[in-house]
């Protein structure tokens, strides 16, 4: 099985929707049926899954110290007796 196999091409088309859980039931059956038989596509799906997690972790940057205090200062006047 290679990228030029029409079944692999179809599976590649379904990759993003599959990982987003946005396929119809029929499409899920097509994708999973093919993945069961095809190492080539299964490896690429797994790679994509790991890649997504890696992108999320790599691109995530914690709020700088001090910003929360600045945001708190933007609050409305505190009413008495609360």
């Amino acid at each position, binding site marked *: 099985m290679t990228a030029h196999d029409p079944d692999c091409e179809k599976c590649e088309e379904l990759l993003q929707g599959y990982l987003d859980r946005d396929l119809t039931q029929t499409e899920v059956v097509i994708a999973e049926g093919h993945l069961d038989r095809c190492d080539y596509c299964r490896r690429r799906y797994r790679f994509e899954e790991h890649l997504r997690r*890696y992108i999320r972790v790599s691109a995530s940057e*914690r709020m700088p110290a001090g910003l929360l205090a600045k945001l708190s200062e933007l609050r409305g006047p505190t009413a008495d007796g609360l």
Partner: protein
Amino acid sequence: MSESGAVEPEAEAGRRIATEARERVRFEEEALELADQVYRVARRMVSTREEAEELVQDTYARAFRSWTSFTPGTNMRAWLLRILTNLNTDRGRKLQRTPDLQPLEESDYYLANKVAASEGEQALDQERVVERLSQGGVVDALAALPHDFRDVVVLVDLGEFSYADAAQILDVPIGTVMSRLHRGRRILKQKLAEETLT
């Protein structure tokens, strides 16, 4: 005047004000709890940390001013991000950003194929193979995405918003979110292959 019923007794007016103040405080506290998550999304929508801080501060200033327009029980994080993306778009217009070119993207397996070509087909089975891409390279590749694509990728893949929430935040149809997301991810993978795999 009392027969008109238009004038609230003083005690009732006082209670109403106190209730509103309590609701406002609750709103502000809930919003502040989301600040880190809002910042993480904001940070990848602009170029520098300073810009991100400024954008988040402007967002909270506006949110605190117009807190009564938030519907309790709805998604506050999405509501805050809606304000943030609007502010960011206004800012972008002021900066007269050059229009983004529509790039031609490669297929979805492109990056995996490149990795397989350099590391071997079996390497794709290992989770650690993605670490061949530098973390700085991931940040740079995201920053280099045309901003329409980047905003959707950041909201869905970093902010973990649903397609529907992203559509509402950006005020575009859900189909637009999906096509920008799919194309944006492909462009991202193409950039990752070009910039971080040598």
